[in-house]
């Protein structure tokens, strides 16, 4: 089973990386990119035998405790 965790910056938090990417995109001619926010993506391979619910619960905990920093980041979890 695989899970994905998407970690994004809370709105209101400055994103210097995203801003730099947006600026570079503009320089190479992509004016349509008005704003860019950069986040993280984790692909977690889970041990066999977990139920979908159990997997979702565990991965959510992993995200809360480690993968995201609650002061500045939000996250969403997807299990498939």
């Amino acid at each position, binding site marked *: 089973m695989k899970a994905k965790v998407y970690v994004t910056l809370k709105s209101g*938090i*400055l994103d*210097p*990386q995203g801003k*730099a990417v947006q600026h570079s995109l503009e320089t190479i001619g992509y004016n349509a990119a008005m704003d860019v926010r950069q986040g993280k993506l984790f692909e977690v391979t889970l041990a066999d035998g977990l139920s979908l619910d159990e997997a979702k619960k565990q991965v959510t905990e992993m995200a809360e*405790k*480690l*993968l995201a*920093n609650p*002061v*500045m980041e939000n996250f969403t979890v997807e299990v498939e």
Partner: protein
Amino acid sequence: MKFGVIVFPGSNCDHDCYHIAKHVMGHDTSYVWHKDASDLSGYDCIIVPGGFSYGDYLRPGAIAKYSPITEEIKKYANGGGLVIGICNGFQILIEAGLLPGVLMRNRSLKFICQDVYLKMENTDTPFSSEYSAGQVVKVPIAHHDGNYFADDATLKDLEANNQVVFRYATVKGETSDEANPNGSVSNIAGICNKNRNVLGMMPHPERCAEKVLGNKDGLGIFRSIVKHLTQS
């Protein structure tokens, strides 16, 4: 007087901090390996050194937060013990919840190693009493993620309690944006907790505390600690 220098996997200013405490200040000092999670009460001051604990992978300090020793550091700090976190040490103390805010990537997105000037904002702490209020000192920084941020409420709180110990400033002491090397909110370079027994700072005082290195401005931090411990 006994100093403990925490060694996480990837710490790399541990030797430098040990050298200052042991050879420059002349006090009993030991390394504390992160897996040896035993009580720290035998120490008078704990130094969480700089470096790249766990490679700074994920976020600086994020993985070190779950090292066995971190629980002990928390207990020690909550019991009033002196803890100073320098650079990566500051990042770890923040992730561990001992200090508020976050340290984000520098606004230039680059690692920066250079001398900066710091203005002393609060000299009434165990870590800064050897300086005079408003004094400007030269101390180097060396980090990729030192861009301090906290929400408005937290900032207000920090200012109200005088928890901002140093700010980035010009040589004349102006805390302007041009003097801000990494984008930190309100030019914050170092803060302490409400109780004043935990300090986190991005600059490296241990790198400027000996004559042969051409700058001794950082020595005051260690002198302040020793003075505080001698008096108490």
